[in-house]
């Protein structure tokens, strides 16, 4: 027997899927921004010579690296209300889970970029009389960012795909919307093929942007 593909019922509800895609982009962008902030903070803490700063940061990073992302989602959604009597809506819980988790991964990306800048660059800056903050801002981070960019993009793609887990908290992301459309159309193959293509279009577009950005950043080499 041959399967009769029929995208019509799915395409008739394309607005629902577009809404989901928009929510996926929204949650991904917000989590990337927060994740970068958390990641930078963790990277600096981890690089600190003071153990009282570096050990907690390392513990945080190791915890997130070694636990499945869905556990973080459930934990923020179900545990916080019980423990602290704050009830989070799915969006907030998902953003918290995604940004803390990706913060841990970004921290390693940033730290790798920072330590990869040659000793001579640190010395060249110090010899001019720069303090640690000036040296970081003017000399080390600009060079580190260009080096950490490819792994950073990789992590951000990973994060964007992980947003699909927010559907388990009933957040109306692309996957959740697909499940809704599926329950109305009973066309799972068509629905999930469509959203797979939508993820592809989103991420391929993002990666072309990333390539342009990378080419501009490394123009000096």
């Amino acid at each position, binding site marked *: 027997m041959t399967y009769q593909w029929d995208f019509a019922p799915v395409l008739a509800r394309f607005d629902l899927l577009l809404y989901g895609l928009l929510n996926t982009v929204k949650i991904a962008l917000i989590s990337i921004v927060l994740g970068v902030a958390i990641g930078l903070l963790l990277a600096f803490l981890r690089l600190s010579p003071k153990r009282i700063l570096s050990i907690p940061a390392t513990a945080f990073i190791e915890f997130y690296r070694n636990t499945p992302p869905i556990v973080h989602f459930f934990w923020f959604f179900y545990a916080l209300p019980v423990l602290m009597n704050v009830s989070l809506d799915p969006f907030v819980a998902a953003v918290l889970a995604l940004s803390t988790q990706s913060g841990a991964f970004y921290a390693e990306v940033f730290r790798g970029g920072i330590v990869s800048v040659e000793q*001579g*660059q640190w010395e060249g800056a110090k*010899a*001019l*009389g720069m303090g640690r903050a000036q040296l970081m801002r003017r000399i080390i981070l600009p*060079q580190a960012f260009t080096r950490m960019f490819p792994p950073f993009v990789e992590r951000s793609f990973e994060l964007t795909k992980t947003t699909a887990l927010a559907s388990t908290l009933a957040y109306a992301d692309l996957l959740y919307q697909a499940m809704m459309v599926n329950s109305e159309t009973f066309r799972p193959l068509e629905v999930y093929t469509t959203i797979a293509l939508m993820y592809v279009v989103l991420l391929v577009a993002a990666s072309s942007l990333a390539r342009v950005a990378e080419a501009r950043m490394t123009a000096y*080499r």
Partner: protein
Amino acid sequence: MSESILRVSNLQKKFGSLHVLRGIDFAVEPGERVAIIGGSGSGKSTFLRCLNFMEIPTSGTVELDGKTLGRPISDTSDVRQYPEAELCQVRERVGMVFQQFNLFPHMTVVENVMEGLVTVKRMKKPQARERALTELRKVGLEEKVEVYPSRLSGGQQQRVAIARALAMEPEIMLFDEPTSSLDPELVGEVLRVIRQLADEGRTMLLVTHELGFAYHFATKVIFLADGVFHEVGTPDQVLKNPVQEKTRTFLNRFSEFSF
């Protein structure tokens, strides 16, 4: 006595169990040009790098304008800790040129020279640019101001590095083997720039293997061996009529293949 800008007393530096500097007393007098020579591993670069705290001395004191820098970590200890502000202050006044140039690759030549002026000295950009261009003209690189360091030869990069250090108007310049990583035919252009600075009467310390240059350049030559000043004197004394056996052995190795 009080004239010296920088003075070190009983300076020691250990890397783990390796005792590199074993108690050095030294003062930099204004206008003098010191060449520091010695075998590899003798501690000559480490000594130079302690003067602007690229290396933190393990013990001993460094005085700037008669004021001892840092403070002991405890009343009984001779180990000192140095607040960042004090280190920055020293480094602003003591410029350094490195063996590997250490230019900032993400900045153009002129931006490299402006960087310290804008970020450290808080100079306005147009003034900093003027100042940078003046220094770049001095080292003969006015044609290259807008290119990135990766487009320059080693000799040109080192001249930019010299301009970058000079722009800060340091009272002392430290040169750490400035020609050691250059192709032989590029050494001359860098040495000529250093020579020109000598003619201006700048206070300079130079770690080098270019003994011929050291002879013409220096007002004082120091032969460093085993972490101490083994022989100190005028270029004629140390390079032509050394008293110490070790100095003679070292110098003989240089003349082995001369013609």
